[in-house]
Each structure stands twice: as C-alpha cells, then as structure tokens.
C-alpha cells in the first residue's frame, strides 16, 4: 500500500507553517464556505504562525479572532459545519482541549453517527502539540492517543511541510471532522527553532495526500521504527547514526492515526521482524500499545522483538533535566533499536 512519497520536483522549500497557510488560503479562495476561527489568529497570525498573513487577504469575517470561549467557538464550528459551512477551528494548545471537550467528543465526533448518517460535520479542528521547550505540564502534551481513541474523528499528524500541506487540503475537503495536530517544534517559528527535517520542497499547486497512508520516510531491512510528528525526525537521526554500525532501520511516519495504516507496518515487520514504536504521548493505554497490538493480531509469527519508547506516565515536568528525562530523544530511540536487535 504505502510507498515513499514521490515529492514533485520543486525548487521551493517551505517551513511547515507556510505550507499549512498555503493550503488554507487555497481552500478559502476555492470555497467561500471555508473560514477560520481561533484565538489570536487574525492580527497575530496564530501564536504558532498557523494563519500568518491570512487576515490581509481574507479579512476579519473569514479569519476570525474569537473570545477565549473554546466551548462556544468549537461548538459553533460544529453547528456551522452541520449547516454546510467548512469551518476550521483552532485550539491554541491541544492541552486546552479540556475547556471545550464536550463539543469535541460528544458533539463534533458523534453527531454523524447519532443522526444515523443524516448529518455530516465537515470541519477541521487544528491544535498545536508537543514539548521540548520547557513549557511544563499544561502546555507540552501531544494527546495523540486521546483523540484517536474516541470514535468519530479523523486524526492527522504531519511531520514535514510537504505532508502538512497535502494533508491539510485533504482535511478541509473531507466531509467528516478532522483533528489536525501540528507540532510546535516543526513549524519553523522564529522563536522556536525547528530541526532540519520538516522544511521540505512543497509544490505551489494544491495536492492532496490520502488519509490512512503511512509514509516510509527511510527504508531499512533490520528493524522497523513506527512514529509520528517530531519523533519522525528523531527516529531518522537515530537510524542515520546506527547505519554507521551496520544497522539498517526502516522509519515509518504514520501521518494519520485515524484511519491507521496497519498494513504498511505489518509489511515492514514481516520484513524486519523487529518493531520499535516511538511516541511523544503517554505510554499507557495509548498509541504504542495500539500499534503493537495491531501488529500482533496481524503478524504475530513474524514479530521477534518489540520495544516501545514513549513518555512515562507522569505529567510533563518544567525543569530542563526532568523534561529531557521524560521526552524520548534520539539516544532513547537508538537504544531501543539496539535492544530489539540484541539477539543478532
């Protein structure tokens, strides 16, 4: 199923935030049902640059600053979507989901089902995720597993500018609610430097990336690393480093959690026999367990060794030595790959 994306030839590379803005602008030009609501999305251009420059082109009626009332404006997006609009609502930090969660998981996610399919909710909920800059327990979470666990939401997590644009086009055109989680560290914001990987070539024209197709960011024969978001880049760094020791690691970027491309993972594990799942979300009852269970159900006999690398089950601490301890880094991923290879 999955294959390495053929990145169309382009001389132009963009940061992830610019790629997202381009997709939003394109969809807004094409379809006047699309509009954007959020805190500080107008004059500020989004705290994480997610809407930078859009106010100038589209004005306040379509790039809407809203009160700090997540229940009201996320719920309003649900209501407008049910009336045929295509709203994009931004939750500034995913950690703030608690403030408006009923509208997200009991309304947005369930109305299509509860209405027996007579209603659809074509909206996108965007949110910034992730730590690594010492913002402590209420501003550093990813919560990938939380949204993916609750039925009725498609969940998207881009790791590069190319993926970010294509997946956002798909998200806005999708007739269902899509939760689009972008990692702060990948956006290319001036005050929060990104690693090298997320800034990629991005075609100027619109393009879509289908949901449910993982991307093999690096092919390898000896071990499979499955990950997402920021940790795609940390896994690629680990793989590059281990290549010097003769360990050939495959890195799979999930890109979407719902739907989940278990088939690409299964095929990879059938080849390598060794699986490491890397997540920036909490360890228990989450993404790492889900991926491993899915592979065990599909390909148990091929599975020689398994490791998971995730946040321990503690809130994310502020001070640098403790935050560094709990958020998986490249060395943690390398060690896990070595462990699944230890019988070689």
């Amino acid at each position, binding site marked *: 199923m999955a294959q390495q994306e053929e990145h169309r030839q382009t001389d132009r590379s963009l940061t992830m935030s610019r790629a997202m803005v381009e997709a939003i602008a394109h969809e807004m030009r094409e379809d006047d049902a699309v509009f954007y609501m959020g*805190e*500080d999305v*107008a*004059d*500020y251009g989004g*705290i994480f640059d997610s809407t930078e420059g859009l106010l100038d082109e589209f004005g306040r009626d379509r790039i809407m*600053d*809203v*009160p*700090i*009332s997540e*229940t*009201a404006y996320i719920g309003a997006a649900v209501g407008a979507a049910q009336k045929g609009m295509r709203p994009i609502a931004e939750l500034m930090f995913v*950690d*703030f989901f*608690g*403030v408006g969660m009923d509208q997200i998981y009991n309304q947005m996610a369930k109305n299509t089902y509860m209405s027996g399919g007579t209603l659809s909710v074509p909206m996108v909920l965007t949110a910034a995720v992730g730590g*690594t*800059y*010492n*913002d*402590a*327990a*209420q*501003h550093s979470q990813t919560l990938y597993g939380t949204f993916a666990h609750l039925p009725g939401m498609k969940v998207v997590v881009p790791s590069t500018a190319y993926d970010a644009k294509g997946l956002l086009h798909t998200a806005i055109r999708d007739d269902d609610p899509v939760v689009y989680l972008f990692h702060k560290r990948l956006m290319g914001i*001036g*005050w*929060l*430097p990104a690693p090298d990987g997320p800034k990629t070539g991005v075609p100027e024209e619109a393009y879509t990336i289908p949901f449910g197709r993982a991307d093999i960011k690096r092919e390898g024969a000896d071990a499979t690393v499955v990950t997402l978001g920021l940790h795609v880049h940390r896994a690629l760094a680990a793989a590059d480093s281990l290549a010097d020791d003769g360990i050939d690691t495959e890195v799979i970027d999930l890109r979407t959690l719902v739907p989940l491309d278990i088939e690409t993972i299964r095929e990879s594990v059938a080849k390598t026999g060794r699986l490491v799942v890397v997540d920036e979300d909490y360890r228990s009852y989450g993404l790492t367990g889900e991926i491993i269970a899915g592979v065990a159900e599909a390909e148990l006999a091929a599975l020689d060794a398994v490791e998971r690398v995730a946040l*321990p*089950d*503690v*809130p994310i*601490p*502020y*001070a*640098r*030595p*403790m*935050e*560094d*301890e*709990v958020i998986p880094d490249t060395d943690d991923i390398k060690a896990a790959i070595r462990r699944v290879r230890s019988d070689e």
Partner: protein
Amino acid sequence: MLGVTELQDMYETMVMARHYEERLQEEYLEGKQPAFDISAGPIPGELHLAAGHEASGVGVCHHLRAEDTVTAPHRPHHIAIAKGVDLKAMTAEIFGRETGLSGGKGGHMHLFDPDVNFACSGIIAEGCPPAVGAGLAAKKRNTDSVAVAFLGEGAIDQGAFLESLNLASVQNLPVVFVIEDNDWAISMPKERVTDVTNGAQRAAGFDLPGTRVDADDVIAISDAATDAIGRARDGNGPSLLEVQVHRRMGHFMGDAEGYRPDADRDAATRRDSIERLETKLRANDIDDETLDELRSRARERVDDAIEWAKEQPEPEPSAAYEDVFSSPPSEDPERAPSVADTGGED
C-alpha cells in the same frame, strides 16, 4: 482608610513586584540573544510578566491573611509576591531548581505555596472553580477565611468563570473574583471579543455585587477590595471586582506586539501606579530618603532571591518520576491473586 505606614508597605511591595519582573526579563533574555530561542537560557519556556499589574495584586492581597486562599492565572508573580509567597523558593522554581516551590516541576505558571494558600494555573479562568471550593471549605468549617480568584479580562468569556460566579452566588460563598483588565488578551483587544466594556457588569446576571475601579490606583483598588473581602468574611457572599491595570510588556517574553499600536503601549507605560502612589506618599510628607530606603530594601530582596536561586542545584532527572501520587501504589510482597473477592469472610 489606609494609614501612611500601610501605604509605605504597599509601595515597597509594588516596587518589589516591578523590580522582580524587570530582573526576570534580564535573566530570561540571557542565552536568547541574538537569536531568540524560547528553550535556551537559564529560564526556558514561556514567561508572562506582570509589570503594570502591581496595584491589583497589592491592593487586594493587602487585606488578606495567610489562611485566605488565592488562585492566580498564568501571569502570577505580582499576586504571589503580594500574598507573601516565599520569594526565594518561588524564584528557584522559576529557574527550575531543586529547592523551588515544586522542586522544578511547575515553573512560573504553576506556582504552589500551601503555607500561604497560593496557587496558580496556566489555563484561562481555571483558577475560579478551586477558589469557589476553598470558599466552600471555609463555609463548611465555619471559619472566616475567604478565597480570591484573579483572572484577566480575556477570561470573562470562559465557562469556568461564569459557572463559578453562579455557584459561589447560589451557595453564598466567601469568594471574591478579581478581573485584572489590561485591555489585551494576547493580541485581541477586548472590544473585539467581549460584549461588555466593563467586566463587573457580569455580576448582575448572577445576583452579586460588581464594582469596577477605572484608575490604575492601588488606593482605589484597596478601598474596593476592603468592601468585597469584608462582605465575604462577614458571611455576606461573593463579589466581583474589576480593576484597570496595564500591560507594560508583551503577552509573553518574545511577543513582538506587532498588533499593538505604539500609542497604546506608550500610554500603558505612562500610567504608572507606582509613581501615582509615590506622589501620594510625598503629599503625606514622606521624604526622598525614606522612599529611597523603601526602594532599596525592595530591590535588595529581589536581587538576593535571584542570586540565591541561581546558585541552587538543578533537580535530578529521576525526580521526574516522583509526586504523581501522594500515596503511590506500592508493590505488595505478600501479593496473591484475588479470586472472587468478597472483602472478607461470608
């Protein structure tokens, strides 16, 4: 009426709070120049400084006792200082040190000092319900302590605030809600996102007294707080107080405030509540020498706390695993499988 000695105390605390923010700004920017990297330097992460908010914290907390509860938002330092939070331990927490209030787990938005019943939270308006809970505990235990929830004007459209007003009102709880109006919710001016220009108007819908203090003046704020806190202490229920303050710095350090007109920022700098109080003190025959002494003492305490904090050790990485629970689940060496447990013999 405040006596001149009280005014001098308030002045000293306000100078301390202002100097604290100015010193933290310097420390915060260390390692973040020329390229600003939020995760670099001795204080990483977001930092929301409260320069220009001093009159609110000091004017209100002047009337509180250690056993009274205060909850503060993400911009908490001036309130913490006025409430008497241990300055050294708070500073060590902001620097992420082992001897900080929380051993480095919380950071500047999450300061907890149970000795003086102070706490803050980084989520808008979410300090309101716990303040209502503190008021409920006081009522149930029949004490005369009160609870004060501070919030920004951007928070008055949040459900947690509105629900708290109703619960405190219907239960007649000893709670005071203090809205600090600095005109800006990050980049959003209140007239664009809020239906009222005067946040105290929210009180009417919940049948409780609401007052707004227009002047960024610690004496006027103190007078209004005396009434509201007195009502709560006497068992006469909650109040809502809105006070005008000014944001002299960006929403967070690193916020270039491109959205903010220069005139607005200049006006915020000109309307200085500390200078206003200084004028009042001079009118009460407090001379330059005394004012100098108050200022020096305030600044010295801040400088000492910062110097002390920077010498403190960083936490061990393994400390990250402690404190998830007060009573951590433990391994039971006698553990045997539980089968059809009925809790005892039938």
